[in-house]
């Protein structure tokens, strides 16, 4: 009826078109729902703005106090709360001796998340290719449940397992062997904590936590590889590996990059698991097994003591760490989601890839 009259050029092709063609004939109730739901739909964006503004406003004094020292100093000390003296820099007063250098945490965050990313991408892609190319259809469903299981395990359970089972196992059996590899690969040299707490254990657990994000996207994409292209490649006499290399991988590459960026963002912000496993040392890691801490885990660990700072500066320093972390995760997330917009797939998983 109205559709046909308004769009003489041809019939509308989807729900969105139908919906738009009818916007002028909303009833009163429709308008109320449109407004109420419209307000609800802006709340995520409002929340994002709220988070950013609160952090910026709270962090300003700490930024003034620290200047570029945030990025150049690896000495993070919230100051002596019991001293009668105070340290004042650029007119901002903080507890005696306070110094908010975040370099340790930035290094810890970047190294732990990058090691995790480097391991998680090939494992996810290889596992998904195996699943889709060789595993029989009947087994594919049950086996892919393991991905969902991995995605569903809470952060604190990963931490619990890493602290009580995985870390001690690595410390007793795997790290000794790895350190012998140091002869060939120098970065495996060094000593480790007997309970396995440290950078490498945390990175390995982070790897497990971000595999579901990368694997679930790759799996969706691999399913959509045009059958004609891969069958054509097979018909040309290519082996299955060559088909994957020439047809499948180029087709899913962009999606893998995008989901890897999302996984990286997840690894940057992971808190409780890392806190329990990485050792929470206030220094950059001495070697690949070394204890250190990350931005996220420091906020969770130190906020407690920051609360008793009479000048309130420690809390603002926490906000500054939070702001650095927010910027890092926004950059990875925005880039990942913008990359994926260029390819014709549904968007990336939201949340932890459950």
């Amino acid at each position: 009826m109205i559709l046909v009259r308004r769009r003489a050029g041809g019939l509308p092709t989807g729900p969105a078109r139908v919906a738009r063609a009818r916007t002028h004939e909303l009833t009163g109730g429709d308008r109320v729902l449109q407004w109420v739901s419209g307000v609800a739909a802006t709340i995520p964006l409002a929340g994002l703005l709220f988070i950013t503004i609160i952090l910026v406003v709270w962090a300003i004094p700490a930024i003034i106090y620290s200047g570029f020292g945030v990025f150049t100093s690896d000495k993070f000390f919230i100051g002596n709360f019991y001293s009668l003296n105070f340290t004042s820099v650029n007119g901002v007063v903080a507890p005696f001796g306070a110094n908010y250098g975040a370099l340790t945490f930035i290094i810890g965050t970047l190294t732990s998340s990058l090691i995790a990313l480097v391991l998680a991408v090939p494992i996810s892609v290889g596992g998904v290719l195996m699943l889709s190319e060789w595993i029989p259809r009947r087994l594919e469903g049950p086996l892919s449940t393991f991905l969902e299981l991995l995605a569903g395990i809470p952060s604190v359970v990963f931490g619990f397992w890493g602290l009580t089972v995985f870390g001690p196992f690595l410390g007793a059996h795997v790290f000794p062997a790895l350190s012998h590899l140091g002869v060939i690969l120098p970065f495996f040299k060094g000593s480790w904590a007997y309970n396995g707490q440290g950078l490498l254990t945390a990175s390995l657990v982070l790897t497990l936590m971000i595999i579901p994000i990368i694997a679930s996207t790759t799996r969706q994409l691999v399913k959509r590889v045009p059958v004609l292209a891969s069958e054509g490649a097979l018909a040309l006499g290519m082996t299955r590996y060559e088909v994957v290399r020439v047809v499948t991988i180029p087709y899913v590459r962009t999606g893998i990059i995008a989901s890897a960026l999302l996984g990286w963002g997840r690894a940057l912000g992971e808190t409780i698991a890392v806190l329990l496993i990485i050792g929470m040392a206030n220094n950059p890691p001495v070697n690949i097994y070394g204890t250190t801490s990350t931005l996220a885990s420091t906020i969770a660990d130190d906020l407690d003591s920051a609360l008793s700072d009479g000048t309130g500066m420690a809390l603002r320093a926490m906000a500054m760490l939070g702001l650095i972390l927010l910027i890092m995760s926004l950059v990875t997330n925005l880039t990942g989601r913008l990359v994926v917009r260029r390819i014709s797939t549904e968007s990336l998983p939201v949340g932890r890839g459950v």
Partner: protein
Amino acid sequence: MSKTPRLRHVRGVAFWILCGLALLLIITPAVAIILSVLVKAAPQLKLSLFTNTTADLQNPGLQNAILGTLVLLLGVAVVAGSIGVLGGIYLAEFAPRRLGGPLRFFSEVLAGVPSIVIGLVAYTAFVEALHWGFSILSAIIALSLLTLPYIVKTTEVSFSQVPRSLREAAIALGLSRITTIRKVLLPPALPGIISGMVIALAIATGETAPLLYTASFSNTNPSAGLFHNPIGYLTYVTYYYVQLPGAQNQALASAAAGVTILLVLLLIFAGRAITARQRRLMARLDV
């Protein structure tokens, strides 16, 4: 491919062996984590776990933590559920393309904000600036911000998956939008919406970081009052007690980890089951 057939074959075999290894590296840890946590938790599963609180010195249990988690989940279901479903309806049914795109995009970006950042902001804004103190409401808001994008997304997808034929029928009948949504689109979309909410609750159950400085923790059972009222929850028990020495503390941490993982997996599988049912339903509806 100018190489000899033999070399090509060897390369292929090597590649697929590595892929098989990768698949093993995904499956083994998933099984290992769940099994080892459940094995550690199993001996602790006694009745006192559900009748005593963590305050009990002789025989501590998880009653306060379990009840607290349920209270928080209820709050998230109400707050994030209502806002998320409405937001999803707007994006699916009303939003003009130029507005819907950015709203959807930033909602997904919000999902990428680290949970500790949300916790820190909720602490500064609600607990400190608004003087709510450690409170149930600030915890619910923090968890809701975290799960909202997920509910918005699943609601929108559920609505847009309703077959076009149903929409066209509603248009042909001259139904108003609100009636179309309530009577025509909602019934087939509902299972998808519910499964999205259930999985959002699973995510909320497993979170610790946003709650540390909003809910804080309480050794007693939850009480009425949204403000100045700390509340217990399961993940905190694991987080806190695993860091303390002593067999009893470790046992309590294991028990809490076991109960948490069971609750989360239960919610995820419930959500999956609903989705599977809906898919069959949709297949039948599509004319």
